[in-house]
């Protein structure tokens, strides 16, 4: 059953439409990532689910029941705020116990439930501390314990990791997922970080300018982005503006970029002679030395030649920038494993990528 259901929800601030016609549903125990750039209406959507903001139109239902008329405290929704919103004048224990007190947990049961939650987030022994005496990561755990303590029907996390530094963020991301899974919480995670969204969510919903653009598994979002915006926002990408050439063989099409480079693609739009934005992921491009034998020109492969401009060895990956003739610049990412040919700036190279890896967005 769907724990949460948003039907055609719209929120306007004056003339400005912050959220437009959003439909969402989420099954019990699933984690849904709500991904989109800053200002696209993610927080507004969460606030409407929590009851802090009233939609102009559309309905919000929790566990099949319309909650439009319910105040925030009449809904059982757990919230983790971006700034954690721990009560500064209360200890860790009092913070976690707060919701239990008001959601009607019998008084004698509260201390053991608090202990249980603190053990879940590995904060036992910190009961008497005040939030100001905790590190950012510890505050985040306490806030999570507080939000989960009352066993909410749905848990909303607003940019839960954005206030932490990069290393801690990765650690806590894994832990967060583990904790949410272990309590089986139905969760919406809001983030503008695609890596976070893809790694946390069973499903990802991409928002842009107040609208839902695409919904799918993390793999689908990456492999088959619905439009240019999603392709650009999720993952890295190289772009070509190209016009379709009349001729094509089988399900292959051929495009010519404005700089005269030919690119073969597999996915063919119905329109025969339109122009399109072509996208190729840096990690899908093979890099070869020009001296490396003669490569036969397979029809389902693209073979380009260029000159290395920059090489950035970033540990696991090597980022290489290559200039193609006619001022086209490509990013190439190679895994730093096995025997990868070393390239240096100024070196002429061959680039190879499959026609099926090229994403086509007709313009």
């Amino acid at each position, binding site marked *: 059953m769907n724990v949460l259901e948003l039907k055609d929800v719209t929120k306007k601030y004056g003339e400005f439409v912050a959220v437009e016609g959003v439909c969402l549903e989420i099954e019990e125990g699933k984690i849904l990532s709500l991904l989109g750039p800053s200002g696209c209406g993610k927080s507004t959507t969460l606030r409407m689910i*929590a*009851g*802090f903001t009233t939609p102009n139109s559309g309905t919000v239902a929790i566990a099949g029941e319309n909650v439009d008329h319910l*105040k*925030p*405290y009449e809904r*059982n*929704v*757990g*919230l983790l*705020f*971006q*700034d954690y*919103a*721990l*009560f*500064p*004048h209360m200890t860790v224990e009092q913070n976690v116990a*707060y*919701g239990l*007190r*008001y*959601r*009607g947990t019998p008084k004698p049961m509260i201390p053991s439930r608090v202990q249980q939650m603190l053990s879940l987030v590995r904060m036992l022994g910190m009961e008497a501390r005040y939030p100001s005496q905790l590190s950012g990561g510890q505050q985040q755990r306490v806030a999570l314990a*507080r*939000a989960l303590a*009352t066993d909410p029907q749905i848990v909303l996390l607003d940019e839960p990791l954005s206030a932490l530094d990069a290393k801690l963020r990765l650690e806590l991301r894994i832990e967060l997922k583990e904790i949410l899974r272990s309590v089986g919480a139905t969760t919406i995670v809001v983030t503008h970080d695609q890596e976070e969204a893809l790694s946390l969510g069973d499903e990802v919903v991409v928002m842009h300018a107040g609208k839902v653009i695409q919904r799918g598994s993390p793999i689908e979002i990456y492999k088959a982005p619905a439009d240019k915006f999603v392709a650009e926002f999720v993952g890295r990408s190289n772009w070509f503006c190209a016009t379709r050439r009349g001729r094509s063989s089988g399900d292959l099409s051929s495009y010519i970029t404005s700089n005269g480079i030919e690119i073969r693609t597999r996915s063919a739009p119905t329109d025969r002679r339109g122009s399109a934005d072509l996208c190729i992921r840096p990690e899908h491009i093979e890099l070869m030395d020009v001296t490396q034998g003669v490569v036969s020109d397979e029809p389902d492969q693209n073979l380009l030649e260029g000159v290395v401009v920059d090489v950035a060895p970033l540990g696991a990956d090597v980022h290489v920038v290559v200039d193609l003739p006619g001022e086209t610049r490509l990013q190439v990412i190679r895994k730093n494993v096995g025997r990868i040919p070393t390239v240096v700036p100024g070196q002429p190279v061959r680039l190879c990528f499959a026609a099926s890896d090229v994403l086509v967005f007709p313009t």
Partner: protein
Amino acid sequence: MLSKRHTDAGLGVLLKATIALTAVFLLLPVVMTVIMSFDSRNYLGQFPPPSLSTQWFTKFAHNGYLWSGLRTSLLLATATTVGATTVGALAALAISRMTAQWRDPVTTAFLSPLVLPGVIIGFALLMAFSALSAVPTFLKMLAGHLLITVPFTIRMTLIGLAGISATLGEAALSLGANERQSFFTIILPLAKNSIAAGAIFAFAFSMDDLTISLFLSDFNTYPLPVALVGLMRSNFDLTLAAAAVFLMGLTVIILIVLDRIFGLERVIGHGIYKA
């Protein structure tokens, strides 16, 4: 190089001298008053007094006119503090929840008595109350004092509320507390110090006010400042100094008590700026 260092040293000395002079300037009248109140002469002689006695305190203790004033002042200041703090805190809370377009004009309206001279407020109130002759004098003065202290308590509470992130109240709501519970468990405790600072200002303003009370008091009901001015006009002797020293002592005691309750440093120092 050397001349720069000399300039620095010179400035340092100048700064210290300024601080010392300011301290003397601020404290000298107080010290003189304290010493004079123990003067053993029974006329107003030159400073310093040749010998000390407590005769002026005895006179003050037996001066029913001043005691009556003090009693009225304390009652008035207490009523003013309670009233102004409650009204101010509630008004500030209401203002802080308004949308931006209403907030500024309403704040300005509430704070406008601050820019009016006391004389004008006193006179205006006198005119207004002359139409309502049945109102007791004490209530008239209370109205006047509320008028000048409420802007302060509003201001102080607003400053305190501004330091409380809106997400704290929302967190409480999402955890099942209703608006009232979230106010009493989260907002009020966090704004406590600012509200207390406003209360102290209200008490001090009320105890100190002369201008408004002068217009609104009568022969039976008058606060201490009015009594002191009356005494000074009719019979200027050192009973005034004794009364002043007594008031100072009372203030110190009140501050010590407040310090025990809230931590004074926080109330009138950080308390205003930080929750």
